[in-house]
C-alpha cells in the first residue's frame, strides 16, 4: 500500500507547476479571455514538452507514461487555469490510445501528440474545443463515440478563456463507438483539472484572508472565514483522493476504472462548484471584480462540472452498482 506519487511523478508535477506559473500567470488567462483566443506561444511550448501525449504509447509518438502522470499534469493545468487546449488534446489522445482501434490510433494519435490535429471532448451540447476540431471524443450516456471532423456551432460559455461548441446531433450519430473506458478516462481527466483549480482557489483564499484586515485583525482569524477555508480543504482533498485513485485504477486495475472514474467525477463535480464559490465569498467585494481573478476558477469549475455531467447522475449510478453488487452476494 503506497498512496503517494513517486519521485518522478512529483518532478513532473513540479516542472509543470513552475512552467505554467512562469508562462501562464492569471494575467495571461485574463488576456486570453478578453481576446477570445488561446495563448498560442504557451500551447507550442506545451506541445514541445509532449504533455498532450503524456499517456499515449511511444509507438504513436507519445511519452508512454500512465494515468497518474496524465492526472498530475492536468491538475497543474487546472491550478494555472491556463488558456490552452491541453485538457481536450490529452484526454482525447489517452482515450483513443486506450480504447480505440489500431486504425483510429494510427489516424489520430501522431497528429494530436504533435499538435497538428485538434481534438474536442465532452457531451455533444458542450464540447470543449469542439469547433473546427479534426476529431471529437463525445460523451454519450455512459459511453463515448469518436467523431471525425464533427459539424459544429461555436458556443460561448461563462468561461471565456476556453472555446466550446455544440456538435450537430447528426454527426455524433455517425460516430464510431470507442471501447469501454474511453468516457471514464475523459471524466478522470476533467476531474484532475478540477483538483488543481480547487487547490488554486484554496491557496489564493488562504493568502488573501491572512493579509486582509478588518476590525483590526486579519479576516482569516474570524472563525466563519477560517472554517470556510477548512471546508475548502476537505472538498479539495476529497476530490484529490478520488482522482488519484482513478488514475491508479486506469493503469493497474482497468476493470475498476468505471466506478473509480464515476467516484472521481462525483467528488470533482461537488468540489468544482463549492470551492471556487467559497473563494469568491472569502474575498469579499474584490472577489466579485473582473480584476481579482478568482472568478476564472469559479467559471472553469462550473463549466467543468457540466462537462462531467453534474454530480447526481454519478451518485445514482454508483448507488445502483453498489446495490447490485450486494444483491450478487460479493463483499
Amino acid at each position, binding site marked *: 500500500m503506497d498512496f*503517494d506519487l513517486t519521485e518522478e511523478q512529483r518532478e513532473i508535477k513540479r516542472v509543470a507547476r513552475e512552467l505554467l506559473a512562469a508562462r501562464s500567470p492569471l494575467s495571461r488567462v485574463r488576456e486570453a479571455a478578453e481576446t477570445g483566443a488561446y495563448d498560442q506561444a504557451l500551447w507550442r511550448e506545451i506541445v514541445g514538452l509532449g504533455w498532450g501525449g503524456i499517456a499515449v504509447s511511444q509507438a504513436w509518438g507519445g511519452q508512454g507514461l500512465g494515468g*497518474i502522470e496524465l492526472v498530475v499534469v492536468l491538475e497543474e493545468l487546472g491550478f494555472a487555469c491556463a488558456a490552452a487546449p491541453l485538457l481536450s488534446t490529452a484526454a482525447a489522445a489517452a482515450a483513443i490510445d486506450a480504447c480505440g482501434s489500431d486504425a483510429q490510433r494510427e489516424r489520430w494519435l501522431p497528429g494530436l501528440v504533435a499538435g497538428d490535429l485538434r481534438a474536442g471532448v465532452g457531451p455533444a451540447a458542450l464540447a470543449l474545443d469542439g469547433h473546427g476540431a479534426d476529431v471529437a471524443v463525445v460523451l454519450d450516456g455512459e459511453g463515448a463515440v469518436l467523431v471525425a471532423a464533427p459539424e459544429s456551432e461555436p458556443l460561448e460559455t461563462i468561461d471565456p478563456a476556453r472555446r466550446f461548441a455544440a456538435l450537430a446531433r447528426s454527426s455524433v450519430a455517425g460516430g464510431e463507438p470507442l471501447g469501454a473506458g474511453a468516457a471514464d478516462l475523459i471524466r478522470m481527466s476533467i476531474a484532475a483539472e478540477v483538483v488543481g483549480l480547487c487547490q488554486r482557489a484554496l491557496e489564493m483564499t488562504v493568502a488573501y484572508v491572512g493579509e486582509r484586515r478588518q476590525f483590526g485583525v486579519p479576516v482569516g*482569524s474570524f472563525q466563519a472565514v*477560517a472554517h470556510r477555508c477548512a471546508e475548502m480543504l476537505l472538498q479539495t*482533498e476529497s476530490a484529490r483522493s478520488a482522482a488519484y485513485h482513478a488514475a491508479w485504477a486506469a493503469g493497474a486495475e482497468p476493470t475498476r476504472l468505471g466506478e473509480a472514474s464515476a467516484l472521481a467525477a462525483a*467528488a470533482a463535480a461537488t468540489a468544482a462548484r463549492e470551492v471556487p464559490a467559497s473563494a469568491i465569498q472569502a474575498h469579499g467585494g474584490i472577489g466579485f471584480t473582473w480584476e481579482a481573478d478568482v472568478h476564472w476558477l469559479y467559471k472553469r469549475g462550473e463549466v467543468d462540472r457540466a462537462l462531467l455531467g453534474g454530480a447526481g447522475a454519478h*451518485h445514482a449510478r454508483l448507488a445502483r452498482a453498489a446495490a447490485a453488487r450486494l444483491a450478487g452476494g460479493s463483499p
Partner: protein
Amino acid sequence: MDLTFSESELAFRDDLRAWFRAHAPAPEPQGDELAHFCWRRDYQRLLARDGWAAVHWPARYGGRGATLTESAIFFVELGRHGAPMMANVLGLLLAGPTIMSWGTDAQKERHLGPILTAEEIWCQGFSEPDAGSDLASLKTRARRERGHWVVTGQKVWTSGAQHSKWCMLLARTDPDAPRHKGLTYFLMDMEQDAVDVRPLRQITGSSEFNELFIDGAVISDEQVLGGVGNGWGVALTTLMNERAGLAFFLQVRLRQLLDRLLREAADRGLLADQAVAERLGELHVRAEVLRLTAYRGLTTVQKYGQPGPEGSLTKWMWSDANQRLTQLAADLLGPQALAAGGSWGYELLRARGNSIEGGTTEVLKNIVAERVLGLPKSR
C-alpha cells in the same frame, strides 16, 4: 502509487482472516450494558491469547510490531467480521502507547500486560464540567501531602469508567504556573473510596459515560507519567493516538451500515427513484472518499513520519457521513427506522455524539485552519 497490499500484508491479512473465521464472535447481546461489556472483554481476551489484541504494539510488549498498514488491515478485518471493538480500547489505543512513550520501565512492566489481556480496563479522565474543548482550563487539583498526591475534583463524560481499574487522569499540580504548564498526567487507581463513579444517561437511553467525583484520592509518585508539570505534553500524545487508531474501524462500520441501508432500500424497490439513488450514491461517495483519504494519510505518516492534512480531515469526514447516513435511513425507511429499541433508531441517536466525542467538529476545523492551512489563530 500502489493501492494493493504487498505480499507480506496479504499474508498478514490471510492469517487474520483465518483466525476470525475460526473464532466467530458470539451474537451481540442486546439491551444489557454489562452483558455487552463482557462480550467485548471476552473477545479481547481471545484476541490477546493469540497475539492479535494489539498488533501495533512492539513484540516485546505482546504486540506484533505491525506496520501502520497492517494495523489498518487489523481494524478493517475486525469490522468486516462483525467482531466487537476491544473492551479495553482506551487502554490499547491511548493509555498503552502513551505509557510506552513516556513511562518508566517499571510503569511499562506494571501496566502493559494487563491492558492487553483486558485484566485491567482503562478510562480517560480529561474532560470536566468547565473544561471541554478548552481542556487546559481544567481545575481538578492534585496536592502534595505526606509524600504522595491527593486529588480532588470532578471529571465528566468518562467513557467506560464503570468498568475501569485505571484512569488516565489530567490534573492541576501548580495553580500558579501558566495554564498549560501546571498540569500533571497521573495513572489513577479507580478502586478507592475517594473515587465515585456515577453513570450518566445518554440520549440513546444507555450509559456509556459517567461522572467522576474525586474527593481525596491518593496517588503515589510511581503513578506520575512523564514528570510533574509535563501533563500537557503527555496528554497530547494520548490525543494524537486517539485520532489515528480508530479511523479504519469506524470507516468499515460506516460501510457496513451503508450496505445495510442499500440492501433495505433495494428490497423496497426504492433505487428506481432517481432522487433516492442520488442520495444513497452521495453517501457512497463520502464513504469511499473517507476510505481513500484514510489510506493516503497512512502513506503520508509511513513515508514522512508525520501526519499530513488527511489525518485531521478523516474524523470530521466520518462523523459527518455517519450522521447523514443514519438520517437518510430515517428518511427512506420511515417509521420502521424510528421504532423505539430498533437499531436504526439507536444509530440515529448515537451518531449525534460523533461530532462531539474526541474533539468537536468545530474544534477540528480550528485545527485544520490553524495547523494545516496556517491561518491566523481564530477568535
